[in-house]
């Protein structure tokens, strides 16, 4: 019966489907649905830029307007992947510039983005509206200048945690006077100076500006002027917040803050004098999101004073300087908390974090809606994890990181298997899990048994034998990304279920016990997987020994075979 619907009706129905998973599912129903869907698809998400080619993307979805691409594997964030491994966006831009010029939105994560790519974007897509770059590198403010100068309808320029070179610093003044469309501007990660006068004028003429995140080079007096012009802001990232609390500037800032009643999200404070924090007290009551993870030198007492006022907080990113005590205050004040991230304040500190399992237990007791956690702590116990699992059965993301990667239960000295077992058993919707601490194969048995919705699993220094990895591969039906480092999983585990890898996006294994021989035979058996070996240099000079362990292996499913842009140090088997 469905086949009698005219295509326009189908298309109209499909237009209500926004999630790419729903759209993917719909396209599998039958040929006619596939065709209607592909011509009406506007947004495409590509989790691994090497799984498909830009040409094939465009031929299947000729009307794509929004493209999301991810490049390097996750562990690249922690210096485990070579800088030049890959993830170049230029070929994508080039292909889109030829075949699909109605591109409006581009969201990139962990990709290499050159100034030439940015210039090509600026030149090729007349309707370009939104550029979001997360953890990318390879570009400078010259590229940003090209975007600012040429994208007449730019609505969003969002730079998150990118490494950007700043040779000239004049990109902000490149926004022409005619540009009034900006709704979101985030340049917090830029290290250089910005033209403050140009910034003020830009803010003044962009009446739709809702989100503004400044870098450290924007001083408080300019912040005050900006806020006076843009009281409609919903999301603010303060740059420098260092000033004399006795000064005129501070008073002006306090007054103007009181009028910013729309602000729901606050971040930044890249440079801060804690005695100036009271200036933001008036808006705390409205905040749903607070990110102080880049704010140095705010001690627990002041943090706590601030957070106590944020009764509607749903998302909190904080440094471990808050301590267990501070987390107890969060638990009592922020009853609607859904996401908590506690980062290390000293990345090189290998000893004395003030965060233990007690803080987490307190949070779980006070914040029953907690569903997303990233927690760097000094120690953990099974009892604590079991309690947390009972208090918060709604976890979607649970990422724990103990300072010592193989620390046991701090009280019983046992492995933390049972604690994580409780988490996966209780949290039926768990999609992402990172385990940490002393762990045996047992924890993977639990994960395989209970973590039915798990899509991403990160393992480090855990397990005893191949059995651990096999439990996970067999049990987690929805597994998409598995990343493993420094764990004793070897060839038997790798080759136990080779078909599984075609149902997953990728597998990373470093410092495990898989050998060259096994990787080669996997690559031979599975032509639709790219099996890449990353060499650090002194291995594998001329002829590999099949019995030698591989230092780093990254495999992923792909429809387009081995990539041609891999550097010499990356071998595709």
């Amino acid at each position, binding site marked *: 019966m469905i086949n009698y619907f005219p295509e326009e009706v189908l298309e109209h129905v499909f237009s209500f489907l926004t999630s790419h998973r729903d759209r993917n599912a719909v396209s599998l129903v039958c040929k006619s649905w596939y065709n209607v869907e592909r011509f009406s698809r506007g947004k495409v998400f590509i989790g691994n830029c090497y799984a498909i080619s830009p040409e094939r993307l465009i031929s299947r979805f000729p009307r794509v307007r929004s493209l999301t691409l991810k490049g390097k594997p996750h*562990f690249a*964030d*922690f*210096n*485990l992947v070579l800088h030049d491994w890959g993830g170049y966006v230029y070929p994508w831009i080039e292909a889109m510039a030829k075949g699909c010029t109605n591109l409006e939105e581009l969201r990139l994560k962990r990709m290499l983005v050159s100034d030439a790519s940015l210039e090509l974007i600026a030149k090729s897509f007349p309707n370009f509206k939104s550029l979001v770059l997360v*953890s990318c590198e390879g570009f400078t403010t010259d590229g940003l200048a090209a975007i600012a100068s040429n994208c007449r309808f730019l609505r969003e320029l969002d730079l998150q*945690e*990118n*490494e950007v070179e700043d040779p000239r610093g004049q990109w902000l003044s490149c926004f022409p006077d005619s540009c009034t469309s900006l709704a979101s501007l985030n340049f917090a*990660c830029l290290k250089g100076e910005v033209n403050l006068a140009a910034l003020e004028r830009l803010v003044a003429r962009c009446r739709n500006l809702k989100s503004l995140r400044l870098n450290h080079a924007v001083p408080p007096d300019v912040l005050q002027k900006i806020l006076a012009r843009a009281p409609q802001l919903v999301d603010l990232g303060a740059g420098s917040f260092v000033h004399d609390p006795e000064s005129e500037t501070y008073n002006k800032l306090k007054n103007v803050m009181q009028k910013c009643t729309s602000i729901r999200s606050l971040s930044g404070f*890249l*440079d801060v004098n804690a005695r100036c924090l009271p200036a933001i007290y008036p808006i705390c009551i409205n905040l749903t999101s607070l990110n102080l*993870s*880049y704010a*140095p*030198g705010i001690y627990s007492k002041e943090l706590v004073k601030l957070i106590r006022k944020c009764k509607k907080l749903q998302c909190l990113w904080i440094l471990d300087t808050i301590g267990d005590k501070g987390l107890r205050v969060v638990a009592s004040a922020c009853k609607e908390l859904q996401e908590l991230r506690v*980062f*290390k*304040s*000293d*990345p*090189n500190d*290998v*000893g004395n974090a003030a965060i233990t399992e007690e803080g987490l237990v307190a949070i779980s007791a006070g914040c029953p809606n907690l569903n997303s956690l990233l927690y*760097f702590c000094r120690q953990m116990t099974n009892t604590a994890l079991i309690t947390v699992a009972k208090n918060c059965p709604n976890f979607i993301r649970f990422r724990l*990181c103990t*300072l*010592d*990667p*193989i*620390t*046991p239960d*701090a009280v019983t*000295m*046992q*492995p933390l*298997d049972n604690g994580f077992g409780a988490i996966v058993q209780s949290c039926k919707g768990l999609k992402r899990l990172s385990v940490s601490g*002393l*762990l*045996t*194969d*047992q924890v993977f048995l639990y994960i395989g048994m209970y973590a039915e919705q798990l899509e991403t699993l990160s393992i*480090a*220094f*855990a*397990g*005893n*034998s191949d059995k651990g990895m096999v439990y996970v591969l067999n049990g987690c039906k929805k597994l998409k990304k598995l990343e493993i*480092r*420094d764990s*004793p999983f070897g060839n038997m585990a790798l080759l136990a279920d080779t078909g599984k890898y075609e149902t997953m996006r990728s597998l990373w294994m470093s*410092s*495990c*016990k898989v050998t060259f021989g096994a990787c080669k035979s996997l690559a031979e058996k599975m032509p639709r997987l790219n099996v890449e070996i990353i060499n*650090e240099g002194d291995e594998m000079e001329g002829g590999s020994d099949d019995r*030698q*362990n591989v*230092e780093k292996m990254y495999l992923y499913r792909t429809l387009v075979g081995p990539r041609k842009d891999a550097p010499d140090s990356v071998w595709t088997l």
Partner: protein
Amino acid sequence: MAYENDMNLKATELRLGLPGTIDESQIKEPSFLKSNNKRSSGDMDNSANEDECSPVPKAQVVGWPPVRSYRKNVLQQQKKNFDSDVLGMYVKVSMDGAPYLRKIDIKVYKNYPDLLVALENMFKFSIGVYSEREGYNGSEYAPTYEDKDGDWMLVGDVPWDMFVNSCKRLRIMKGSEVKGLGCL
């Protein structure tokens, strides 16, 4: 508990834990690390009798704890700024002929004359008058400093603030060596 029957505690061989946190009686099997795998961590021996000692400096494991390099860089830069703002800018001062070095906090001083007087008092010598053309010509000693680029410069040439931000260490050179500088 199933765990107790399957005591493959190979993982515990990796001695990154704080001393005394792992019960020695549980460790039986040799480490899985005895393989061709390269490990970035160095500390693999089983010397576990450090309960009484202060924390052993641990070998750094690459990429652990997993903190994004962007975040690491930002925090490190902030720490540098913070340290120098709050904790003072202590630099080593060496004097030709003196048996040991001293350290001074150059942020304590507001200008060159203050600094030079302090140095004179510390080392009991006298510096002449500074002139742009001749440096400290005429005096027995001249103050020099190593800047961020690693070059040795004469103290006094650049504005005071610039000097404070770029000075890494000081060296009071004997007049005979200084003649060369003064002629620049």
